[in-house]
């Protein structure tokens, strides 16, 4: 369960990225976060990960107030949340396999589990034959899929995806959406920031629309909603 109460975020340069955000996302929900470029979607996500601190307000995850979480506990918070970062954040010195395995190594999974689990998720994102390549040897879409594989490999209780299909062709994008939907059906809360109008419209899930840091719409079974 994710809950925000009166959250504000103002960056150094005086940019107000989020303004008075109040919302509640229940366990097992599938939520789209939409809004124009610079609306504050990534900032919203960064706050959940404690990559940025809110200027004001309180954030609860699973009834725990994370705004006052001690530095030492932050890694454990992050392990609970699988994240697909907008800029991928792959380790440049590790191969595709190692990048995904790393997420399992930090929770001290056994080599056996790693050898079983990693190829499986790489298969799910269609990268079985890229396991031994380094990130700089991958195409944009492939990098994005490695990031997806890493986010889901530990079966996290919350999955956050920041623009997970931005570099993917529609077909591959739908493959990925199927994977996310499947994970969601198993009980994982999914929060996905996206610009993919078609996907949002077809999926018919809850849509939270941000604009200039404010929630302008929060709709069950919504559509992307911006006309062009």
């Amino acid at each position, binding site marked *: 369960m994710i809950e925000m109460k009166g959250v504000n975020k103002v960056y150094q340069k005086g940019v107000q990225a989020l303004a008075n955000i109040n919302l509640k996302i229940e366990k097992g929900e599938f939520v789209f976060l939409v809004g124009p470029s610079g609306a504050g979607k990534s900032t919203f996500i960064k706050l959940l*990960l404690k*990559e940025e601190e809110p200027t004001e307000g309180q954030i609860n995850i699973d009834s725990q107030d994370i705004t006052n979480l001690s*530095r*030492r506990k932050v*890694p*454990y*918070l*992050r*392990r609970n*949340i699988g*994240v697909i*970062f907008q800029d991928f*954040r*792959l*380790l*440049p*010195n590790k191969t595709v396999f190692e990048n995904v395995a*790393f*997420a399992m*190594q*930090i*929770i*001290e999974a*056994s*080599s056996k589990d790693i050898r079983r689990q990693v190829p499986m998720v790489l298969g799910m994102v269609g990268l079985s034959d890229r396991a031994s390549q380094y990130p700089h040897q991958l195409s944009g879409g492939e990098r994005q899929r490695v990031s997806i594989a*890493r986010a889901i490999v530990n079966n996290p209780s919350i999955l956050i995806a920041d623009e997970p299909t931005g570099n993917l062709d529609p077909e591959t994008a739908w493959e990925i959406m199927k994977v996310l939907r499947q994970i969601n059906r198993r009980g994982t809360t999914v929060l996905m920031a996206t610009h993919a109008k078609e996907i949002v419209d077809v999926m018919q899930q809850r849509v939270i629309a941000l604009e200039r840091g404010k929630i302008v719409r929060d709709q069950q079974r919504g559509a992307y909603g911006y006309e062009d």
Partner: protein
Amino acid sequence: MKIRTVKYMFRQGLVGLWRNRGMSVASIGSVAASLVVLGLIITLVLNINNVAELTQMQFDSIQVYLNEGLDQNEVQEIGQRIGSIDGVQLVEYESKEQALKNMKERWGEQGYLLEYLENNPLPNSFIISMETLEDADGIVAELQKLEGIDEIKYYKEIIENLLKIAGFIRTVGLVLILILILVAMFIISNTIKLTLNARRQEINIMKYVGATNWFIRWPFVLEGMALGLSGALIAVLVVYFGYQYTFQIISDRFTVMVSAYMIGTRAMMHTTISMFSVLGAGVGALGSFISLRKHLRV
């Protein structure tokens, strides 16, 4: 922490060294270079110190002039008494004839002057070697209690001057070595800092994925340690062969005498190996540890 994680960390440390080998080589080079300089100076200082100590030992004796006209028995008794004083290591008898002969030899070219002497003005004497210099004053006090003794010659001033000079050299040397250790530590930790800085992105990402500080730190600390140790190893080899070579040249060019004043290659190595290993590995590990702190704060 599980065993598999420990293994993972050691492996990661080595893998990190290899995958960033360009940087690793540069770092190891800098570590080695600063330790070589340190080795150079330590060698110099220790040797100068050694020479000072050996020289000092030569003046490290008390000469006791005996009264004129003692018979053999009396002389022997005095000798035994002296031998039983605490701190006396060795007592040697020098007759007045022997003393003149020695003096002539010592004066070399000007020795001929002594041939113009009417009679031998030198006394019979005992020459006393001490166990340690610190005992000198006590021994002199004991000697003064003995009978049949004319004068006690003790090169107090020379010894004190030598002690002063040796002390000064030792202080300057220690200060120098201390400065150099600091410099080496500074350069090594700076090098590690620059190495890590090039990988700050990597460190950040690890944090974002949920790794604890220690999980990230250990491989880097081990890597820093390995960097430092490798640099130290190179430095030890350079210093070792450099010293041996210099030792050889000096023995060849000058008399064996000079190299007798030098510390042996073996003894030298004990100092450098242990010191460099500790410095290299310690500063490498500590440097990694400290430099990481900044990057881990995300």
